[in-house]
């Protein structure tokens, strides 16, 4: 029996596979935190105002006592800095609506811009504001799109995928530049006091790319540079990949990460459950994070989500015990808790309460 821990102590212990008082629990309630602010904050305001964004994340830590805070805003930050146009609806996740690649010559025009400007500048600013607010309370994990996701977001995924097959050289040149952008942004964010850094390597999944393609267009060179940079800067290395059928062997075992956030798709054959990822040895390597269905936060009742969480806690505890692990699993949401106005805040409360009750170790 472990003495009660603070969320921060639990966060550190779980990464290191030390004994914990209860399972760590951090649903990816990100833009949802804006709804904890005393005055109404729209999604657009949250995504574009670093001060409001940082304060919202801090409110989330204060209210929900998350052991980990992942500072994902949306997946168009780096694409925007590269010059892609991002549509900002009042209450919708921002997304790229005008790509920058229209012909093969456009790959050559991609150069790493001044990352202290634009949306990457805002992201750095937000992290700078947030770090002191949550220091010692929540393990602060910065978040950024990886090199390939940056390129597909900026250039259009379909276009880039076709060019990867038909004419890969210009794609590689552009990936060199997006990698530079990622590395420079990572360096600046490290200066803000972030303790961990999470890359989104979404395309490392077997619905999109096989092992050789993923190795060629991200894993072997570009992701390696990003992962090495995080290590060099002394931060914990995380990966988020909410796609179905992620490349777990590459991204967990080969990359040697500290934290891995993934989703579970019960309707997709081969999608591994929480117990399976632990049984298959991924929890031996790092803290695995997942996998409550994000839609349950919108459409489920408190009773339903409490039951799902309780069942997941039991599944995880049993699997950890069988593998002789102390703590290497964090109850999370697999993907961002939908930031919609309809998402029920009480369902996040319910998950945190259920883990405290059923996740005791």
């Amino acid at each position: 029996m472990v003495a009660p821990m603070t969320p921060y102590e639990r966060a550190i212990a779980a990464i290191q596979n030390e004994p914990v008082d209860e399972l760590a629990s951090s649903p990816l309630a990100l833009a949802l935190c804006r709804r904890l602010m005393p005055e109404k904050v729209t999604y657009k305001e949250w995504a574009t105002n670093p001060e409001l964004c940082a304060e919202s994340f801090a409110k989330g830590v204060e209210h929900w006592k998350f052991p980990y805070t992942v500072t994902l805003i949306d997946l168009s930050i780096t694409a925007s800095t590269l010059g892609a146009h991002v549509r900002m609806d009042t209450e919708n996740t921002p997304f790229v609506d005008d790509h920058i690649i229209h012909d093969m010559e456009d790959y050559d025009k991609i150069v790493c811009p001044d990352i202290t400007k634009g949306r990457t500048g805002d992201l750095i600013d937000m992290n700078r504001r947030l770090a002191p607010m949550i220091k010692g309370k929540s393990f602060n994990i910065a978040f950024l799109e990886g090199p390939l996701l940056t390129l597909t977001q900026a250039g259009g995924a379909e276009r880039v995928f076709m060019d990867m097959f038909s004419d890969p050289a210009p794609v590689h040149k552009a990936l060199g530049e997006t990698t530079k952008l990622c590395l420079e942004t990572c360096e600046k964010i490290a200066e803000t006091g972030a303790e961990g850094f999470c890359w989104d390597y979404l395309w490392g999944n077997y619905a999109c790319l096989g092992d050789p393609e993923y190795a060629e267009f991200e894993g072997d060179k570009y992701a390696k540079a990003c992962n090495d940079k995080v290590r060099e800067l002394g931060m914990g290395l995380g990966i988020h990949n909410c796609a179905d059928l992620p490349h777990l062997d590459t991204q967990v075992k080969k990359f040697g990460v500290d934290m891995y956030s993934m989703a579970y798709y019960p309707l997709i054959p081969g999608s591994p459950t929480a117990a399976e990822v632990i049984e298959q040895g991924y929890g031996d390597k790092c803290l695995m994070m997942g996998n409550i269905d994000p839609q349950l936060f919108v459409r489920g009742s408190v009773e339903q989500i409490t039951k799902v969480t309780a069942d997941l806690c039991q599944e995880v505890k049993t699997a950890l015990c069988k593998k002789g692990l102390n703590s290497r699993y964090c109850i999370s949401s697999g993907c961002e808790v939908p930031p919609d106005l309809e998402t029920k805040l009480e369902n996040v409360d319910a998950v945190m309460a259920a883990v405290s009750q059923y996740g005791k170790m």
Partner: protein
Amino acid sequence: MSEEIFEELANAVINCKADLSKAAAQKALDAGVNPVEAINEGLVKGMNVIGDKYAAHQIYLPQVLVAAHAMYAGLDLLLPAIPKEDLADAKKAATCVVEGDVHDIGKNIVKTMLTAGGYIVNDLGKDVPPATIADTVKNEGIDILCMSTLMTPTMDNMKNTIDLLKEQGTRGNCTVTIGGPPTSPSFAEEIGADHRDNNAQDCVNWLKGQ
């Protein structure tokens, strides 16, 4: 002669060669091959090989997209050559990403597999308002509507579209399928769609079984 051309068309798709697909389609037309046969016995057979290999994780998204491009290169020549009366029995499908979202790779794969499945597809594109979708279903007599979204806040536009179909009296004539990571069979049921699937190939198989 025809068999040879069919093989050329199929191989052009399988080998992801748009220029060869176009050349073989022109050859078919020059040789007086029935364009419907050229499509079904050539391009579609090739695309089905690609679809099967993709489903079996033997090839991946880049190859599928380039193969689809090759198929469309041939279709662009063959489709206009089909006499209108030959298309009278073909089912009409519409594909779209609903308003508020622009992520369309999944939708484009569905469009490709529907085309390979013999449907006449009207692709409405991305960020499409419910009224546009409902009007298209009504005005063009669409038999099958496939809607997708990646983003949770836009899911309600699937329901809004179905509600409009009901209002306009076309829901009963049109099979509605939905897709995209945030959707689920229970959501499909909740909004009154007929089906939700994980992938394009399975969706087309389901439609063919109806």
